[in-house]
Every structure is written in C-alpha cells, then in structure tokens.
C-alpha cells in the first residue's frame, strides 16, 4: 500500500478508498495523530502529580497516552520508567498497572472476554435486557446532555475520558439494561484505544460480572467532575434519571 502522501487529507481519502467498509461507522477523523512523534510529545508533558490530583475531572491532567499504549507505539515498561523519574508517580503507575492487569486476564481467558466472568451481583427490577445498543444512545439522541455529549465526542474524536466511560457504561447497562457486550462493541469501533482487554473487562467491572458490585453514579457526582457543563441547559434537567441519592437509585434499579 502507499506510503507517500502530501497531506493528511490525501491519506484520509486513500484510506476511505481502500477500506470503504469503514465508512458505515461515519467519516469522522480524529485530531489525535498516530505515530511515535505525537506519543513522545504527550509523554513529555505527563505530570504524575497533577494526574493524581485531577484525573477524575473531565478537565483534569490525564495523559491521553491510551491509543499509543493500546497499539504498542509506547510500551508499558517504557511509560512506567518515565513516570518513575517524576515526583508523586504512585497513582499513575498504579493506573498503568490496571492496563497490564487487563492484558494478563485477556491472555488467560482469550475470547472469554466477551462472556460474563462471574454472575452479576445484583438482579435488576426488570428482567428485560437489550441485545443491541438502542438508536437513541448510539445516535446521541437520549436528550441527556451528558450521555449525548459523551457519544458525540467518542464518535467525533475517538476519545472518551475514563470517568465518562464509567458513567456511560453504568447508564447503558443499569439504567437502560443493555447487554454490556453491545456497548463494548460500540466502543471498540470508535475508541482509538479500543482493545478487548481494557474495554470489555472494564464494562464487566461496571456490570459487576468482574467486580464485587455494580458501579453506579448520581447527578451530584457527574456534576462535580464535569464542572456542571452538561447539566447547565440540559433538556432533561427537570427529570434527570441520575438526580437522586445512591440509595434511591439502588432501590429503583435493583431487586
């Protein structure tokens, strides 16, 4: 295949022509550039101390290294070493270890990442379970500014902040009762860092098929870590399904 391109636009046109089947997932191209140079530039900027203090905020100092780690442009050993040379690196190294852990589990169970690792720890009030991701979720038309915003970002940029991934997964699995596999597949198609290990096993963690309890959140939590940017002006702010205490949400969703 070709290696000579005078511009990114020319490369994009060539990829469209050579892989026309990919266009069924949209024509968006991420601003995130592939390659070692871009990865190095990000690696240079990693600040483990700020990461530890702010990573749960959407505006926090996250590394954005995931696509490069996922595809081995950078190795986990290399980023660990670079982190160790900087102060207050413990949390960042611990988070890198999660990726290593998911990979090792994947190595142990292979295609088993698509099956429930364990029984879910709680039963939903309704037994109805959807096998496919509903159109309103995939099309960013739920009316919930947060969830629609997350999906729009994912489809447009190939990126979703880790906390947003958790909220989105929890909403899809527990509020909408969609099988986690359907949402995991959607992520794998669009996330630049999508891989069956981190992706599927994280969905299972939220679902409680690989964890001690289902992961839930509420509006207060989401509002805090997003600086309220979705809730302000959300069309469904008046009937927000997340605007309750954890106890109320638990009772509403589970037996």
């Amino acid at each position, binding site marked *: 295949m070709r290696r000579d391109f005078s511009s990114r636009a020319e490369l994009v046109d060539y990829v469209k022509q050579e892989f026309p089947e990919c266009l069924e*997932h949209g024509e968006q*191209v991420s601003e995130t550039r592939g390659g070692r140079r871009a990865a190095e530039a990000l690696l240079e900027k990693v600040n483990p101390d700020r990461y530890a203090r702010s990573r749960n905020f959407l505006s926090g100092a996250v590394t954005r290294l995931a696509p490069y780690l996922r595809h081995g442009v950078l190795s986990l050993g290399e980023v660990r070493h670079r982190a160790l040379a900087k102060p207050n690196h413990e949390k960042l190294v611990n988070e890198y270890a999660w990726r290593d852990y998911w990979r090792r589990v994947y190595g142990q169970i292979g295609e088993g990442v698509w099956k429930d690792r364990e029984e879910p720890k709680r039963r939903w009030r309704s037994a109805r379970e959807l096998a496919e991701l509903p159109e309103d979720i995939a099309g960013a038309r739920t009316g919930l500014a947060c969830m629609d915003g997350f999906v729009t970002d994912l489809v447009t940029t*190939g990126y979703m902040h880790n906390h947003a991934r958790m909220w989105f997964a929890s909403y899809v699995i527990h509020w909408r009762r969609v099988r986690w596999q359907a949402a995991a597949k959607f992520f794998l198609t669009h*996330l630049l860092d999508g891989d069956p290990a981190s992706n599927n096993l994280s969905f299972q963690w939220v679902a409680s098929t690989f964890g001690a309890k289902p992961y839930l959140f509420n509006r207060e939590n989401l509002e805090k870590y997003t600086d309220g940017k979705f809730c302000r002006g959300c069309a469904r702010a008046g009937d927000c399904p997340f605007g309750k205490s954890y106890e109320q949400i638990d009772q509403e969703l589970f037996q």
Partner: protein
Amino acid sequence: MKPVVWMHEDCLRPIVPGAPAIFVFESNGHSLKRLVFLYECLLELDVEIEKGEIVPLVRAFAARHGADKIVTAFTECPRLMGYARTLGAEVVNDDPFVAAAGPFDLKRFSRYWQRIERQALKL
C-alpha cells in the same frame, strides 16, 4: 540468521532494528478514524504496508527477503498469536510492564497489584 518482522496492531514499534518488516491490515470493523490513526503510526516506521490475509502475505514477504526466521511481538490477543503459531514465528516480549514471573492470582486487581507493587514502583 536473517529475520523479517511481522508487525501487528498490538505492537507498532521496531522490535528487531534493521530487519525488514511488514504490517497487514485485516478486515476488522475499525472506523475510519481508527484506520487513519493506525496508518499514521505505520508511516513513521520502516515497514511495508499490505492489506489482505496475514499468513500468506507474511510468508511471501519472508520468501522475498530470503529470510530464515519470522519474528513478531508478543500479544495476549489469541487471534494474533494463532497467526504467529501458523507462521512458526519467534515471539518476543521486548518490554514488559514488570519482569515479575508468574503465575499471578488474577481474580481481582488488588491481588495482582499487591504482588507487583514493589517492583512496579522501583526504577
């Protein structure tokens, strides 16, 4: 020994400096943005880019270069490691997260972390 490298999408970095390398795009359901990202990674590497079936294309590449060995990077992906076995490739794990030897208790992350923490936090 004259090796060639089969580079796959789980390890887009050189593992045998100077050895000819090939990457093969499979039909895998990726979106355009993912394919562009991968292609950009490949354009920074000295690698021949192909699309189609991995095993015959890598074998033909190795024959073209008169190679006596195919080398590839370790991955936990069973599909890719299946190709490596079919190709009779030497699999290298060039830069693991930590060098601790298994087996590991992978029931929960906390158990795994407890086992590797000291090594992970050591230069």
